[in-house]
């Protein structure tokens, strides 16, 4: 990684070499990456709108049925139109986004924590521990992730928390592999040897010396997994094993719109576009992060 050393020229008597902090350097590179900035802006707008959904349209509008107003096309009053029960689609999409994004982010966080713990154990200790852990990871990875998530949701029952657990569980193997590879790549560096020789505890070595030096690829993988998790959660809800009605969620809104495909196709277009926008922006940010963390990888 290039560390620019700045040298203030005005005072030659005391030359100060100042190394910009790594975070600043990454932020600087991110700012230069236009797609990443666009992604970040879109993502921020979506997150803000979803966070303040209650202030934009109250939750009541998303679940109160009003059969008189059913299937109204988009207009000034109902920006995205109304669904088969006369509920405001804009309100449903906003409040649905709360759940979709919450599942996406929290399952990514969940699998990141689990993945970092197990991956660094496997990478750091090696030998039997590594073998046993990685073989179990192979087994879980051999099951198609969406079917795995479906089975877990069926076993635990359909609820928001269980959906998060199911999605996280099916995503963790990928993160464990990335963390393990990253840990392996710095595990035999001199400073780790030095820390070991100095009698530092294993936990402290992993936490203080190894993880900060391989956080880059892990961050990228976790960012990308948020996008995949949003898609996975939407797919589960679409298949009817996710969020229970009438609670809105992007996947379930699309699933409900199936029967009105001929007459009211806006019902499926708007939530679909929201899913695309959020996964697209997350992917852009992930790409930008990868390039900013390691400019050599940039293509």
């Amino acid at each position, binding site marked *: 990684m290039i560390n620019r050393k700045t040298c203030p020229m005005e005072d030659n008597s005391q030359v100060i070499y100042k190394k910009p902090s790594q975070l600043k350097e990454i932020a600087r590179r991110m700012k230069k990456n236009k*797609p990443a900035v666009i992604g970040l802006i879109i993502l921020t707008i979506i997150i803000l709108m979803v966070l303040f959904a209650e202030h934009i349209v109250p939750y009541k509008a998303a679940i109160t049925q009003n059969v008189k107003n059913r299937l109204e096309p988009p207009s000034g009053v109902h920006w995205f139109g109304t669904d088969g029960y006369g509920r405001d689609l804009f309100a449903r999409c906003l409040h649905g986004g709360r759940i979709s994004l919450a599942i996406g982010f929290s399952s990514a966080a969940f699998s990141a924590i689990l993945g970092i713990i197990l991956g660094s154990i496997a990478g750091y200790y090696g030998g039997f521990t590594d073998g046993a852990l990685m*073989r*179990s990871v*192979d*087994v*879980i990875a*051999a*099951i*198609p*992730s*969406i*079917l795995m998530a*479906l*089975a*877990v949701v*069926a*076993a635990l*029952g359909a609820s928001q928390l269980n959906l998060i657990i199911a999605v996280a569980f099916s995503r963790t193997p990928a993160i464990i592999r990335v963390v393990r590879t990253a840990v392996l790549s710095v595990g035999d560096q001199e400073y780790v040897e030095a820390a070991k020789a100095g009698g530092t505890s294993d936990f402290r070595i992993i936490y203080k010396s190894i993880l900060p030096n391989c956080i880059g690829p892990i961050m990228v993988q976790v960012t990308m997994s948020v*996008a995949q998790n949003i*898609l996975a959660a*939407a*797919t589960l809800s*679409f*298949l*009817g*094993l996710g969020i229970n009605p009438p609670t809105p969620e992007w*996947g379930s809104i*699309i699933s409900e719109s*199936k029967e009105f*495909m*001929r007459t009211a*196709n806006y019902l*499926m*277009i708007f939530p*679909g576009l929201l*899913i*695309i*926008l959020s*996964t*697209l922006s997350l*992917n*852009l940010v992930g790409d930008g992060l990868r390039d900013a963390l390691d400019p050599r990888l940039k*293509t």
Partner: protein
Amino acid sequence: MWRYLFRRCLLIIPITLGVSFIVFSIMAITPGDPATMILGIGGTQEDIDRINQELGYDRPFLVRYGDYLYKAVVKHDLGTSYQFKTTVWSNIKQRLPVSVKVTTFSLLIASMVGVPIGVLSAVKQYSLFDTFPTVLALFFAAIPTFWLGMMLMLVLSLKIPIFPATGIASWKGYVLPSLSLGLPFAAQQLRFARSSMLETIRQDYIRTAKAKGAPENIIIWKHALKNALMPIITIIGINFGLILGGAVATETLFSIPGLGSMVVTGIKMKDIPMVMGGIIVLSIICSLIMLIVDLLYALIDPRIKAKYSRGRRAAI
């Protein structure tokens, strides 16, 4: 080479055993029992108990698992579906070809669209041939497959009736599902092909070929692509598994009788033999595909073949 192949094939056994144990455990903690599912709401407690006993569901977990394994391995019997009363094998035999067909078509679309455009955009980096496909690929990579399927269905089946919306009565039925599964993966393969190709065309031997005066087309499609192909083949192999197992939503949407939808209805109905059979077959196929990908490496890259035959390659 053969020793390596043998070892890799042997590795599939513990993985399949692990898969079967995990799926069996998850199914065991799923609430409800098969008899209630079979009889519906009308069944009396006596009938429920009797059927559960007939199915052997009243025995302890490990005994049931052992019995399942014994029957599957020794008698090649994956059991009988609780819902349909037909053997799991006959269901798999009917559905597997459909799944493989859809997956193959999707993969063909993905590779035939993704790889050439990816190579082209790498060669013409920063031109319109690069930016336009790259932006489009980013967009397609973000689309949920089931939504893309619905949009295709809306446009190419309901608005302009070219293809049937559901069913696979003729080849036309395969078009929309394969497109909706293939296009997002095409986007992914485009990105892979592009970055892999970019890396390759910067290497010295390509410059040498250019200096020698070899025609541009031959340099790109013969010299460079051959070396850039390895990561692309890996991703195609991984994608085969992903599409085969992940086509559930698309299968449901287009009412295609594939393996994925068989597992989903199985999960919903707590039809343990169907779920077990389906997932085990899927995972074995995925492992085999990855094995084939590994062998293809050797076919493409003589350096790897040399490693195999010297037996230096560490176990994976």
